[in-house]
């Protein structure tokens, strides 16, 4: 696969990741996780940190390993 097509593919994946991140950081989904756990504290902060780290991890994988995929 030549360089420009590989880049287009990375870009397509990145766009998908951005859409996912926006979705997960926005109200309908945020509201779902805004529920008190058994002890009464909201899960929301934990949810945000976890999603945040996952998004960053995927972004890192996309950015650093793009030469290897075909």
């Amino acid at each position, binding site marked *: 696969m030549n360089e420009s097509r590989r880049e287009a593919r990375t870009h397509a994946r990145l766009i998908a990741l951005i859409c996912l*991140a926006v979705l997960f950081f926005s109200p309908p989904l945020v509201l779902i996780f805004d529920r008190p756990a058994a002890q*009464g504290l909201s899960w929301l*902060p934990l949810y945000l940190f976890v999603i*945040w780290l996952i998004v960053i991890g995927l972004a890192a994988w996309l*950015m650093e390993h793009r030469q290897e995929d075909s």
Partner: protein
Amino acid sequence: MRTDPVVLTVAFGYLALLFVIAAWGDRRAEKGRSVIGSPTVYALSIAVYCTAWTFYGSVGRAAESGPSFLLIYLGPTLAMLMAPFMIRKMVRIASTQRITSIADFISARYGKSSSLGALVALIALIGITPYIALQLKAITLSHAVLVNYPEAAEFQLADESFWVDKSFWVALVLAVFIILFGTRHLDASERHEGMVAAIAFESLVKLVAFLTVGVFVVFVMFNGPMDLFSQVADSPRLVGALGLDAVPGGATGWVGTLVLAFLAFLTLPRQFQVLVVENVDERHLRRASWLFPLYLVAINLFVIPIAMAGMLLPVGNSDPDSFVLTLPLSAGLEGIPLLVFIGGLSAATGMVIVETIALSTMVSNQLVMPLLLRSKRLQLSSQGELAGWLLGIRRVAIVLILLLGYLYHALIGDSYSLVTIGLVSFAAAAQFAPALLIGMYWRGATRLGASLGLIAGFLIWVYTLLLPGFAQSGWLNPGFVEQGLWGLGWLRPYALFGLEGWDIYSHSLLWSMLANVGILVGVSLFTRQSPLEQTQAALFTNAMNPGLQHTSLWRGQTTRGELQSLLSRYLGANATARILADQKSSRDNSDPAPPAMIARAEQALSGALGSASARVLINSVVRGEALDLESILSILDTTSQTLEYNRRLEQKSNELAKIGEELRAANERLRELDRLKDEFVAMVSHELRTPLTSIRAFAEILRDGKDLPEDKRTHFLEVVVLESQRLSRLIEEILDLARLESGRLTLTPQQLDLVSLTRHSVDAVHRLQEDRGVTLQVDIEVDEAPVIGDPDRLEQVIINLLDNAGKFADDDDPQVRLLLTRHEQHYRLSVEDNGPGIAEEERERVFEKFHQIKRLSSSAGKAKGRPRGSGLGLPISRGIVVHLGGRLWVEDAPQLQGACLVMELPQAPE
């Protein structure tokens, strides 16, 4: 340790360290060994986003409004994810156009308009000064908390007079620092490497300080996060503190703040400075796009625990903004609070340094220089070097901006919490986003549209955020906030047009963006662009087109001498020599300057003065115009067309090459098949002819020889019978082979015992072998060997193997050994002989049709008579075995040193 002299010594010592780092960075840059040429340093420099507001204010905001503080960092995370599309384009544009600031960027996009540049600079100045004030406030406040704890800090502040105020002195020291490292050279160097190195260092310091205090609070003051959060859960006061209900404006406020942070991250002057202007390599964006968000996660990790801990513990009557300091202080510590103070100082100074450099560049390039260039008197007196002037203007601007920040802090700052000021500034900076982002992607956006949109957005920001803030500080009559201007309810600044229930920032953002974007697009649709504007619009929107990179866009005329003197007037002789170094200067100064040289000169001037002023200056010496839009578009079209053609051609030729290869392979295969067919026919006929010839010969003898003795006659007849048998066997084999190859071989597989089958086969050949004098040794190591197979065919295979081995065994003492063993899920039957063996490269070929191994006699090297066998036995055997799911191959005989043929069949399922 918390006495004033110690704290001041540490603080100023830290600033001195920054000086050293910045000086070292600049020194390295001059030697060409840049310290900031690393994506990690770049990512750390972007972390100037985390100011004192993050350092102290996040905890305060978490305590007051739950997880909403995270939005300030989720927005930039989203923006950084888009770096490969958006920020990369900004960087590309900035480097080709020598952009010096966000004001310059917007001004350049809309036809190098100086009025638009001035507008952006003004808005930035008004919107960002409070933010600088906020940093100074944070330094003063944290210092007061540190020194006066456990007394309340606010009381002490009120007593202090002007020159005892630490922030005044901090502002002055910072001014000196910024002047030293922000305005050292002017020659096309909009970059400040030493400063960026210092900023990256500061980002590390504030991260370490915050993590230290976080670890201390969670693991020393509490027994880990579980302990902390179970205590929080037990406290009814705090139960709702982490949910969405605590967020101002609820779900709407959530989205609003997210969008606000996203836009502000791209448009805050200091962010634009580090992200775009100070970027040394586009490729650094790739690493930074995840490393910087990771930094944000790290620095926010302990915000919630610290906020919760602060609310659980009675840490004096302090406000949540200083929990980071008061928590370790309440534990009686000295060292960690000092480290926290340094971390906060780091965060604050980092922001002030970059922001002031960005603002002073804007003020000098967009506000002061255009005015000076317009003034006739200055033009006349400008025979000397203007470089000094330029530096002077920038230095004065730096001092003034910092003093303005100090004044704001002294006069109004007390009434605001840290976060409030920060978000107000965010909303001001966000006004640049439409002109910036839409301008980058839509060629049709015009200067008038951008200007009017910007003004409208800014006015709404003033009315909905700035003025109410002034009212809260008592500067204005607060009545208009409650009742609306002139008592009109729909003009209430926090509920414009009756939009109530939103948080004030989302509210302001909605109306200002609606006006800003609406007017920008609406006006652009009904106005025309000037030629230069069209050109710039085309250059910006097509910035990623590789054809544009090295195109010279000037075709006016001037002389080398004129250009040179223009440059040296503004940038100094040394810088001019450096800039024009690659232009052959040996020629006469009255020669016309080539377009590349004019472009180079304009770029250099842009880097120092901004694009609008550079344009004015170049126009003053160059007669003629820059390329018009038509030419640019044709350049763009041709390059993109050429690229497209190239791409298609490459694709086509790739396809052709692939097809060609496939054809060649197919052709070769055909030839091979043809050759095999010929060979096969030749061999078959040869094989058939041999017995036929001998039959015919003997038959003729019998016909003609009437007087042959009886015993001879009998012998000859026997030969005829034998040869006929051989002939029919051969034909049978050929038919078998044909059936095998066409897949019509009918086997009747059934479960059978290989052991008894083997014994049976051995019995069948035993006599024959004995006649030939072959010693046959049979080792059967298993009691029974259930396999699936056709008994007749398998027997045929085994007999064939034994027969072959007998033929190829040693002539003098022929030995054959049959071994039947179990091997994992298979049964292996191997037949070996003590003959000469089969060479490694021959081993696969013995399974080819009619392949006959030339028998070498052990004594002489010559072929010994006719090869034995038809050469069809092994191919047929292999066909049958494969058909039954097994394998047949040749290997070295383990005992008898000859060849060994191994047949392997899978064990029959139970």
